[in-house]
């Protein structure tokens, strides 16, 4: 403005004669023609090819086993039992067997999986109170209205953790056993901690301040979610650092899955144990399941997944194949362009056609 005032006379409103205002900035005008971009195409094809091959080789070294145990073996009884809500309090356990043909080398990850469970429904997703799980005292007793109708029970006692997400927490539990021979059984030790993101465990989820009281005292005045069998401060009775809101199963469950078919980490093979230092050896395994989570209401399926991981995730052939396909597509385009370049403007000036 000050600048504008300096000028006067008939040319006062004349725009500045600067390269920017008069659009005279030196410009680079690339022309996309075959002869300029061909090297780029070939290079890109090559890079995608190499990446694809590398990824493919990496993926092929992984192993994965999936077991849909919804109605598998004697779990069928439990499945039938869970069909009736009135038996919800009854415990039911079942056992599934499987065998591994090839040893799982390295870290083995134990997942549970659910199918057709929409954790990404908007109303469901909204039904949670992050401030409560952050350990805010005020929110503990007075959960956010987002949690409705899972904010308070019929008597008006606040629920901790509130909301549909926490209420529907997956509550099957698994014990993996290795059978090196018919008579011998070795329980496979699973690490049930260190599964979450560091930030979730240490920043986003905190227990309310205990002030030297027990965790149970801290949660005094709240009650467990309706579908839970035990209160939140009792989720891991043996380890106070894994109980309450910072229970890792809870944290993992609260990280809502992107798709209706998903898996969530249950445990990692503890390779400190002498039998499993190299991973899971081949042989027969059984999983003892405490079968609690009903899936028939939403036509869902439950499964366990045992897998080893690569540096870019689990066993997923999509990426390597996608890279290889892309690479060949680019190569095809490059060949077409080469032909075009050969036939038409080799000199780059098609002025005369």
């Amino acid at each position, binding site marked *: 403005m000050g600048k504008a005032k300096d000028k006067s006379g008939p040319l006062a409103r004349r725009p500045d004669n600067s390269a920017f205002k008069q659009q005279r900035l030196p410009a680079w005008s690339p022309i996309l023609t075959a002869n300029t971009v061909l090297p780029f195409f070939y290079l890109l094809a090559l890079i995608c090819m190499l990446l694809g091959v590398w990824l493919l080789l990496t993926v092929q070294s992984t192993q994965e086993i999936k077991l849909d145990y919804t109605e598998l073996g004697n779990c069928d009884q439990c499945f039938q039992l869970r069909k009736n809500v009135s038996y919800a309090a009854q415990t039911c356990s079942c056992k599934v067997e499987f065998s591994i043909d090839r040893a799982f080398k390295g870290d083995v990850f134990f997942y549970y999986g659910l199918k057709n469970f929409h954790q990404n429904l908007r109303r469901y997703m909204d039904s949670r109170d992050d401030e409560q799980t952050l350990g805010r005292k005020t929110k503990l007793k007075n959960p956010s209205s987002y949690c409705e109708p899972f904010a308070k029970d019929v008597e008006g006692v606040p629920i901790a953790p509130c909301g549909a997400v926490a209420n529907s927490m997956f509550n099957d539990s698994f014990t993996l056993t290795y059978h090196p021979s018919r008579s011998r059984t070795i329980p496979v030790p699973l690490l049930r901690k260190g599964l979450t993101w560091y930030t979730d465990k240490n920043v*986003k989820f905190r227990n309310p301040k205990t002030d030297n009281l027990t965790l149970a005292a801290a949660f005094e005045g709240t009650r467990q979610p309706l579908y839970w069998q035990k209160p939140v401060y009792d989720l891991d009775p043996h380890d106070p650092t894994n109980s309450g809101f910072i229970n890792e199963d809870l944290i993992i469950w609260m990280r809502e899955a992107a798709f209706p078919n998903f898996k969530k980490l249950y445990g990692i093979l503890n390779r400190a144990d002498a039998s499993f230092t190299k991973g899971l050896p081949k042989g027969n395994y059984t999983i003892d399941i405490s079968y609690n989570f009903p899936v028939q209401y939403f036509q869902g399926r439950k499964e366990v997944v045992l897998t080893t991981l690569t540096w870019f995730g689990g066993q997923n052939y999509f990426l390597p194949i996608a890279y290889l396909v892309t690479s060949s597509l680019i190569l095809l385009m490059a060949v077409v362009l080469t032909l075009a370049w050969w036939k038409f403007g080799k000199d780059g000036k098609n002025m005369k056609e």
Partner: protein
Amino acid sequence: VRLAVLNEPEAEEEVIFNQHQQLPRTRWSLEDEGIGPADTHWHDSRRKSKVATNGQSDVAFSSPLETEVIPDQKLLQQISRAESSGGCRDSSRKIDPHLDFFLALAICNTVVVSMANAHRQRACMSPSSSQTNNPLEAFSSMLKKAGALFQRKSKRNYSLSEDPVIDSTKTESSRDPNRLQTCSLHALSQNDILTAESEDLCYEAESPDEAALVYAARAYGFILLARTPNSVTVRLPSGEELVFEVLDTLTFDSNRKRMSVLVRHPVTKEYVLYTKGADYAIMELLGTPYAENISGIEKNIAAYTQHHLDCYAKEGLRTLCITKKVVSESTYQSWLGKRKRAQAAIECREELIMETAVQLETKLTLLGATGIEDRLQENVPDTIVALREAGIHVWLLTGDKPETAVNIGYACRLLEEEDLVINMSCQNKLTCTSILDCTLEEVRRYGEDPRNVGTTLNISLVIDGNTLAMAMSPDLQERFVDLAKQCRSVLCCRVTPLQKSRVVKLVREKLKVMTLAVGDGANDVNMIQAADIGIGISGQEGMQAVMASDFAISRFKHLKRLLLVHGHWCYTRLANMVIYFFYKNVAYVNLLFWYQFFCGFTAMTMIDYWLMIFFNLFFTSTPPILFGIFDKDVSAEVLQGVPELYRTGQGKGEYNFLTFWISILDAFYQSLVCFFIPYLAYQDSDVDIFTFGMPLNTAALFTILLHLAIEIKSWTVVHWIIMLGSVALYFIVTLAYSAVCVTCNPPSNPYWILQSQMADPMFYLICTLSTVVALLPRYTFHVLKNSVAPSPLLQGRQLDRMEPSTRNQWIKEWRGFRGGPLVKRYELSDPPSPTRATPVDFFTESLTDADFMGDDNSLNVITDNHHRAVQYDDNLFRKL
């Protein structure tokens, strides 16, 4: 002889719009002026300078009306002789017609006098001069600043020298050289004294023509010193100052086509009516209405004058007749009564006043005629040729006589020598209808003739105002438009301002084309407002046109740059930016759409909604805006050098049905890629919803920005900054947001998501793959198209890369290749018939039409593309 001389000061003033910068300003006095040879020299140089260009950008705003007036020596001698002979004016009641003529020039106008160095003072001195508004003031001050010259000259037209009248005056004047000498010296000394004073005088007129006449009178010593509502002060060559009492001014209107000033002569005390006006309006008022009552000599004079006028018109001069009438006391009194009644009337006041004016303006005595050259501005023919090559049809709508208009038409290459010119001028509707029918039939037959396949008849239509009015009547307008469509150019002469706008509207409605009207005068305002795009040329005609216009330019030649360069740029920028905006939104919103299939159609988004808002608001907003402002597909030089490039914007341009849907399809494809590649990569994994959204969002960002990068034709440092800045901003904002926001925005949990993703190689693999796959088709398509079938614009861009000399070589060769000389070329490539394929394959013809309009230099261009021009130029900008 004496009476014959009456007519002799035919005074062909020529206002020369000539800027000659190379010459230092010459202050000239009479003795500097060579007579014959110098005149002819000037005559020639004027002709040549029409074509010569001397447009330096720093004087672009100066007015071209410039002028020194070089008085004709012979005429001067006549005047001085008349002066001295009529020295004792009281004795001889008869005033020399030469003197009278110049007196009329000085008086019969509405020019206001101001002192060049005292504008304020002038405003006080003449409070009535409401017309002298700021633009005029600015104009005159500009004159001074630019140091441009008002150059004007009166000259003897030697082509008419066989005229016996002139010969006789010649001989007469040579008879007494001594006296002549003294007289001229006398005049000279007077002039010397007066120069200093009169130099300061500034004339501010409603039209440049008026000013020109006053300047002409001044050159002959009749200096208009002051004008108040009631008096006019004129200094005669003798130095005597006469104060005329102005009794009434009958102002100009387009029906009467003349104006009059009624004054009382201070010496003779006669009531004198000076009238000037269009020749055809004046001629019928000469003497009595009955021709037989005019004495033989007067008849002769009228005939001679008419002959001269015709010659002027053929040369493209604007003609005016100056007449005088002495009104008797009694007539005046009775007329005054009527006049006052008319002025006091409540109803039909305008008509009554006009009627009284008509009553007084009868039995006029012809004093002389003037021819004013309204010179074309520099580069007008070039500009018109370029516009035509650009596929724009040019029409000329002018108030001038047909002869003048045709002359101008040839001068500005609107008409070509080999054109078939159809002259339509008829008195009644019947003839008009038959002419239209015949011509149409002829044109059709020509088209059907097998011999003429591949050629088009070059028809130009010249039509005058009356005929135009008939042709535009509802029953004939279809036929008229049909014929006009076949014509290469149409000249409408003697049209009123209202007709101008009607023509424009007719063309707009019937031909369904985009119209552009260019004009510089107040009479073009209607037309400028009627057209789709109105362009005003600022100049001597005042600022009315400019104020009514959408765009203002200072010179006609700038129209070329305005349309061909800025119009083209603006069109491509807008077209591409609009398409890009559609694309961008479709591409991004579709990501969310695809997700609905996986979240039970609950309108859940996998991207935190603040990030979604920021995405359109910050991360991808500036690059398209920059694209819309800065992109230059082809440089200005090439666009001006190859006007045909303009045609890409007409009809089958860049923004059409096909390009729109292609980009929408591309948007769908890209959104599919950006969604399903991450989806498939994360399928059956333990990914959470917002972690899944992050690579999606990032891939979309890169795809959308790189898509633009493919579209951007020229990269400046600003582009790089904005592009890289957008990406940087995305990461900075998202990282900061993810780091700070622990519980905010409840349903979504952005906390630490991007950080954890950026630590995961999967993120990079997905982003890279999605972006590459998404952009591959477009990129390849561009490359393939550019290599196999390059568009004209691309060829233009290739021209750009060459050295200027090589480029010019190329352009020449290319033009040669495209077929013959200039004229031939648009014969071939510019057919109005939309069915025929042009021999030039990549310039498909477009049904375009344009109006050139001109009272001189007003243009009306009609094209059927949808462009607007920008006002970003060093030479052109809106003044208001």
